[in-house]
């Protein structure tokens, strides 16, 4: 069985600045891999390169290969939008859209599923992130009224609704209080049975607690 992600000789530059230099690695399916290192060493860039979120930045240039489930995602014929549905991304700062909780969960899929599948899907993914009990009575209220920790779990639920196989998390706990952070950490462990997870973090402790593999980033000059 081929690994979920294979990176071969990846080099990323922004204009004249080299951010990642000749990096290679493999990530096994259904595992948690933590990427740690000092800030500014290219952790986020690496993560964002895996779902081509850097494409629209001016001066971005990438050489080498990134294979997701054996397919080179930088091949010109790859459908970027389809790729991003398979490789979901959670960002540092929880960011919910100024709509209802219900609509937020369905935001990524609403054009592609039937009306009747909506309710079960919302319940399923909200249960997966342990948010269902807290919000089931106010699905119609604005998502921005939730606490920051709840918002981050909602953001994860929103990504899960798209059914990605790989989850990229960019310091998902850094803007949360310790309790919410612990919630997210246990959530990561439960998600690992069905998802391949890449986690960027600056906390060694967190990395050792939840991850199966560690990647250390160093500043590359």
């Amino acid at each position, binding site marked *: 069985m081929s690994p979920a992600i294979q990176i071969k000789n990846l080099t990323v530059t922004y204009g004249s600045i080299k951010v990642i230099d000749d990096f290679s690695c493999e990530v096994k399916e259904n595992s948690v891999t933590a990427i740690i290192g000092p800030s500014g060493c290219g952790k986020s860039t690496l993560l964002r390169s895996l*779902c081509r*979120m850097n494409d629209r930045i*001016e001066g971005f240039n990438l050489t080498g290969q990134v294979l997701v489930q054996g397919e080179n995602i930088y091949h010109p014929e790859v459908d970027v*939008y*389809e790729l*991003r*549905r398979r490789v*979901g*991304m*959670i*960002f540092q*700062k929880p*960011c919910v*859209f*100024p709509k209802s909780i219900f609509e937020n969960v369905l*935001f*990524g899929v609403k*054009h592609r599923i039937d009306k009747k599948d909506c309710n079960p899907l919302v319940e399923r993914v909200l249960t997966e992130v342990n948010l269902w009990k807290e919000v089931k009575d106010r699905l119609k209220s604005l998502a921005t009224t939730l606490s920051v920790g709840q918002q981050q779990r909602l*953001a994860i639920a*929103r*990504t899960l609704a*798209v059914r990605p196989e790989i989850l990229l998390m960019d310091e998902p706990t850094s803007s949360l209080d310790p309790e919410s952070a612990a919630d997210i950490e246990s959530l990561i462990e439960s998600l690992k049975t069905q998802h391949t997870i890449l986690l960027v973090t600056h906390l060694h402790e967190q990395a050792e607690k939840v991850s199966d593999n560690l990647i250390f980033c160093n500043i590359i000059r």
Partner: protein
Amino acid sequence: MWVFAGLNLIFLCCAGGLFLFLIFESYPIFKLHGFDFWLGQDWWVGEAYGALPMLYGSTLVTALACLLVLPLALAVAIFISEFLTPTSRRCVKAILELLAGVPGIVYGLLGVSFLSLWIKDVFGLLDGNTLATASCLLAIMILPTVLTLSEDAMRSVPAEYRDNALGLGLSKWQTATAVVLPQALPGIMGAVLLGIGRAMGETIAVMLVVGSLDRIPDPWFNIFSSAQTIPSKLGREAAEAIGEGTHWSALMALGLTLFIMVLLINFIGNRFLKRRSIS
């Protein structure tokens, strides 16, 4: 310090005095006609002063210009803010800023020499100076202003929202319409209202192509007939009446009406823009 306070007072007096002056100067006509001034349909110097045709003309011309500008500005603003690279964005914005500075009289000349002739030929009219001509010309004039401000409103939506939507697998187009546009909407509304305010007060370009006929078109929705707007009326007649008499007072009352309309529109527009900057 008192020097600066005095200079500030001069500035405040300029703004406030303008308003008081208009009220003061137009008082005689309101004393004479009351609020019928706004309802009267006839304007014969020395006999009757009715502002309705001018009010109607101004409103219709502005509304039409707005209808023409809105879809175009929206579409182009989306493209500039969401799809262009930063370099070409700056380029387009510079072009728009230059366009916004083209003097009204140059637009007027263009309107007289081309637009009104085209409209005459295309629609087979006897006279190309119509409401429709004025609206088209105004639309072209306010497009750069509306466009720049709308684009600013869209750019001010934080990048995280775009990242999140794209991360969910939405296309750039879906991101632009479902995430960026709804959040930028108050700002865009503000931009459009400021544009309307500008269009309503434009004198020279409109005066040259609107036909200057002081009556409500027949039927009322006939946009291919000549009409009159408030600024154009002022521009045509103020020179004859300047200084005193009922005629002057009537013109000042028209000016006051225009001032209040433009001010209201601007006030609402700025409220929209401000709401954006708070949220």
